[in-house]
């Protein structure tokens, strides 16, 4: 199952153990420092997308639960968090960082079970970065005056944070760490398909003895998120997810005094010039689009190759795609795990059909797929036009649309021909060209001769319809502070 058929050297399965992971049959909500039952009784199953088996049952919060959580956050703000010395706030965040490091393997396994991503990614990317985010922002808690000189930065109050399913724990860390460091309290709503690591984070917050109400975690579907961001007791909304939902949220905030930051979709251009190190660039393209099965807002989903090397690059990409291992996400050799949900799989497949209908040429490796679960082969399209939907719309799956170009001016124009502007990649051995491209590309992050690099010290976020505000780095603090 793990190998392409012509592979003569099959790999033995290398499954990560899950013995040390204990899951409850059913989870409540984390409010005011305790795990509590909902005021309602509705629960839904959280399944493993690689097996379609139920992992646990999650609470569908009621509007009343949302209200209780927001009130708890307000109380946590008034009684504890806003009164605490900034350096003491920082010490709690350092504790959380250390606890995440200590429990990282357990969390990585859970992330993979719940979301379908390869264990290698949850173990080597999601978890270390989640801990690092807490560690980085812990240090800022008592240093805010240096980030905003001659201002007196003040927290906003209660932050409503709604996060997506592609990096569940990491997105929780991206949201919670800067909010707490700057003195805000939080109500977090994880995505309905991936709530388990966020709930486990609740346990970690208890272990860290974080004062009650400072972080509250409520679960449920989109309507819960809607009730949360629209709650009048909320001062700040932070959302990561689709552009469509982001616009709805922004509309619902119109006329209120709530501050907001949105981290939305993308359709990143990954640009390969003829003078690039081709093999390195090909590896970067693979990482750019197939990392986390392409379910990444900054995925390099549009590839632009300089015409003179296009044939060579495309052949190399096909070879590389053929060698990718698709299968059990718990296997340490796995490159592509399961798609997060049946719904998302359907969306991706619709787009693949659209690509074919629009006349683009599809390539997929022949690897067999498991019988159970939600799977999509890594896919690439050539002969894609600028007008094609697969070149314009965010697919959020392992689908690469390849186009070619002849001049720098042409590729800049093509790359910028999108309402999105989250990220871009540039592959060339000429430094001056990198700086030319990075100054002309309309994107919040430009990766030169690399892709999908993340660090807590580095701001991340988009231009235009990819949202606004930055997460990470010194700039990420501003989203949670009043400095005016």
């Amino acid at each position: 199952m793990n190998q392409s058929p012509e592979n003569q050297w099959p790999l033995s399965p290398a499954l990560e153990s899950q013995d040390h992971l204990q899951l409850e049959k059913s989870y409540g909500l984390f409010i005011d420092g305790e795990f509590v039952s909902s005021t309602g009784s509705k629960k839904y199953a959280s399944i493993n997308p690689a097996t379609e088996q139920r992992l646990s049952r999650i609470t569908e919060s009621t509007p009343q639960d949302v209200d209780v959580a927001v009130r708890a956050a307000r109380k946590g703000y008034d009684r504890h968090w806003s009164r605490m010395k900034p350096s003491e706030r920082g010490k709690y965040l350092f504790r959380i960082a250390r606890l995440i490091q200590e429990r990282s393997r357990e969390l990585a396994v859970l992330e993979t079970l719940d979301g379908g991503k390869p264990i290698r990614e949850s173990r080597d990317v999601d978890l270390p970065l989640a801990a690092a985010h807490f560690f980085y922002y812990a240090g800022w808690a008592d240093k805010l005056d240096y980030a905003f000189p001659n201002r007196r930065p003040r927290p906003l109050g209660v932050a409503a944070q709604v996060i997506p399913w592609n990096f569940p724990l990491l997105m929780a860390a991206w949201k919670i760490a800067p909010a707490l460091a700057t003195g805000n309290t939080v109500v977090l709503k994880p995505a309905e398909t991936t709530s388990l690591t966020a709930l486990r984070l609740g346990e970690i917050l208890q272990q860290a003895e974080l004062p009650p109400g400072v972080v509250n975690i409520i679960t449920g579907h989109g309507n819960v998120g809607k009730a949360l961001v629209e709650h009048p007791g909320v001062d700040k909304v932070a959302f990561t997810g689709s552009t469509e939902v982001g616009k709805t949220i922004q509309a619902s905030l119109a006329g209120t005094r709530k501050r907001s930051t949105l981290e939305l979709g993308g359709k990143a251009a990954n640009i390969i010039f003829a003078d690039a190190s081709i093999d390195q660039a090909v590896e970067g393209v693979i990482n750019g689009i197939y990392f986390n099965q392409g379910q990444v807002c900054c995925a390099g989903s549009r590839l632009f190759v300089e015409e003179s090397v296009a044939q060579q690059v495309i052949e190399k990409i096909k070879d590389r795609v053929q060698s990718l291992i698709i299968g059990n996400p718990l296997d340490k050799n796995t490159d592509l795990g399961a798609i997060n949900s049946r719904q998302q799989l359907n969306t991706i497949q619709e787009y693949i059909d659209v690509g074919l209908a629009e006349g683009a040429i599809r390539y997929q490796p022949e690897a067999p797929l498991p019988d159970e679960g939600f799977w999509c082969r890594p896919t690439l399209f050539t002969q894609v036009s600028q007008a094609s939907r697969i070149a314009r719309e965010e697919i959020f799956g392992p689908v690469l649309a390849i186009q070619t170009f002849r001049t720098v001016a042409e590729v800049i124009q093509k790359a910028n021909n999108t309402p999105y502007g989250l990220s871009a990649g540039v592959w060339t051995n000429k430094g001056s060209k990198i700086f030319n491209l990075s100054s002309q590309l309309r994107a919040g992050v430009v990766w030169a001769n690399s892709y999908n690099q993340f660090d807590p010290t580095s701001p991340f976020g988009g231009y235009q319809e990819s949202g606004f505000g930055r997460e990470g780095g010194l700039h990420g603090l501003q989203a949670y502070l009043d400095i005016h």
Partner: protein
Amino acid sequence: MAKNKKSAPTLMVPSRIPVLKTYKMFVGGEFPRTESGRFYTPRVKGRSLGNFCLGSRKDVRQAVAAARSAQAHWANRTSYNRAQILYRIAELLEARRLQFIQDLNHQGSSERQAQAEVDMSIERLVYYAGWCDKYQQVFGSVNPVASEHFNVSILEPMGVVFHIAPDNQPLLGVISIMAPIIASGNTTICLASESKPISAVNLAEVLATADVPPGVVNILTGSLDELAVPAADHFDINAIAWNRSNGRRNKTTLQMIEEKATSNLKRVRRYERPWTRLESQNPYLIADFCEVKTTWHPIETISESGSGY
């Protein structure tokens, strides 16, 4: 030590003769005695603190060699890694909090002073741990030069810093300067307080078990006036941190250091402040032991897209 009523009877056997500690120095991750074989016996209110190494000129040279060989590697660690190691020092100091309070008591501090000094030392380490991956964002800059260049200035560690610790706060004084020195990737040699060396010497044991790579911090004991001379003369020391009050005897020593330091233009930084104040911790202390490096890189201007952006 806090007296635990329950376990006290088993712990305190009246006839027991305590095992005394041999105080040694800390160089390159090891605990050598001075090569000179000499010792001295500092006293507080007439009571001996024990025998300490009376370090020599050659000990200084060995410590510099250890600090130099560790420096590039330490500076090449990620700032996140250095941050975690500084935090780890805080964790271990917290775990040995009672011992360090006792040490300060022993050296003449009141119980309250001692407790405050140890607690503040732990907080200070956490404070500078937080700066490791941030000072660059506060002090670095991208400079809008009037030509087609990407121009960026960053801070780089100076190299090896010789640190002369104060007498009045034998633990907090060491940590308040050691932490900002090593935060950016410098390595250091600390000359412990001559009259109250216990805290610095015992701090070495914390450092040795806190994932601090060997040679990043070295701790010498001995006579200030004797060891300041080879330190000020040494060509492989980049900076000297003078962290002592401005008494008359100190003044002469400092002047000597400043004169000799010109031989290779060592930067001499003077700190005469009480480290107990919160304002005494700040990122400018990190910048004090950094150089500013500016890099120019051309930006290609051909083929502008003219796309209107």
